[in-house]
């Protein structure tokens, strides 16, 4: 019996929803990162961020492959032929790429979250998830080092770099709570030891982030009004991102290789 068959129907559909959310975060963030290709402030960073974008899109594929084991869905179909209303990414990752400070801050916050998430998923009772998490976790060590380095350098650099980072923090902070907002099926996944406790995950991520910001002389904004709504609510930014990201696949839907 495969690992997927051991889950009852309720757990299967809860896990499909969770995997879709995780994959969409990675896919949309990876695409936003890829928008810097050819435009990064340094040639070396251009290569580094393109590499990270590929890694994040690779992580999306890990989660979509795991979903495919459960419901037979096709990862390419999900990535390139779903409409905006069916995406389940957090708003944070779809926001336009902004300046380098915004891009690095978003990447840092997501890397901190992903590092803590993957650390917990490595001990998931659902083996395919634990194995995929172990694979992605290796790359995440490097991603976090890279984005954390930039947070420190921008915060302690010039007035300009610090102002830009502060503005980015104000822009992004209202969206951060969405990262651990539970989906309806998450409680069941948690009871089955498949996915972590969101409250405990939040505490771990916020502990890590607050310490890094404090070390750089920054504080999380206290007056941010959390963005309401769940992962099914998106902004115009995601519409235009999908038009761009899906255009090649949709131009020739029957193509067998590209």
């Amino acid at each position, binding site marked *: 019996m495969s690992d997927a068959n051991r889950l009852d129907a309720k757990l299967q559909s809860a896990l499909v929803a969770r995997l879709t959310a995780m994959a969409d975060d990675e896919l949309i963030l990876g695409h936003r990162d890829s928008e810097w290709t050819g435009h*990064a402030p*340094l040639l*070396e960073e251009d290569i580094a961020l393109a590499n990270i974008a590929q890694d994040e899109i690779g992580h999306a594929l890990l989660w979509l492959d795991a979903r495919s084991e459960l419901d037979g869905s096709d990862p390419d179909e999900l990535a390139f032929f779903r409409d905006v209303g069916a995406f389940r990414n957090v708003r944070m990752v779809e926001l336009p790429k902004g300046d380098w400070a915004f891009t690095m801050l978003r990447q840092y916050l997501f890397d901190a979250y992903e590092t803590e998430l993957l650390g917990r998923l490595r001990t998931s009772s659902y083996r395919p998830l634990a194995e995929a998490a172990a694979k992605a976790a290796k790359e995440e060590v*490097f991603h976090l*080092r890279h984005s954390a*380095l930039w947070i420190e350098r921008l915060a302690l650099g*010039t007035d300009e770099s610090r102002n830009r980072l502060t503005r980015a923090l104000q822009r992004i902070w209202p969206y951060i709570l969405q990262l651990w907002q539970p989906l309806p099926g998450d409680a069941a996944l948690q009871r089955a030891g498949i996915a972590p406790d969101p409250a405990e995950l939040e505490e771990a991520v916020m502990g890590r982030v607050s310490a890094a910001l404090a070390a750089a002389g920054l504080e999380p904004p206290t007056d941010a009004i959390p963005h309401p709504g769940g992962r099914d609510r998106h902004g115009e930014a995601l519409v235009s991102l999908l038009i761009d990201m899906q255009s090649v696949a949709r131009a020739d839907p029957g193509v*067998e*290789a*590209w």
Partner: protein
Amino acid sequence: MASHAPQAGEGPRWEVFKQDALGKPHQAVGSVHAGDAEHALLMARSVYTRRPAAVSLWVAPAEAVFAVTAEQLADDDRWSVEDGGQERRFLVFRKTSHRRSMTFVDHVGEVTAAGPRAAVAAARQAFPEPPALAWWVVPADRLSASPDAEAEAWFDPAGDKTYKQQSAYGLLAPKKRDRSKGGDR
């Protein structure tokens, strides 16, 4: 490209040394621009190890690398004037072959000397064979290494990235041809 560039520009240049496997020497593979040593190591990882195998990286500020060719040594003995100063450790690199397409300058060992010129003289004595075409010496305290504890995270992932390999794209054209002929693949 320049619109987002910080006023400070692209930062100093760093020479990058890559070790392909344990037991092999670190080899000079090129350079990166970066603001500091840690940033230089991260950039080196992205630029020089995405596809090729690697187990360790070193970086050193380009201005800390003293380089001299065999021709310079033969033509001009001013290089050998004693620099003076404190005895310190230098890492020694040498190029011994023109055979390969890249300019490999391999790590060969270490000497203690009062300055870079004296270090080259000591290196010639310590490592006479095979004859060197060029020597590089770098003060040991100017060199920074990728963290050994994170080697897996830095270098393993490149190994399973088929889509990063040029060869992974080789089959696309034949597949498309099959389809246009109505082939059943």
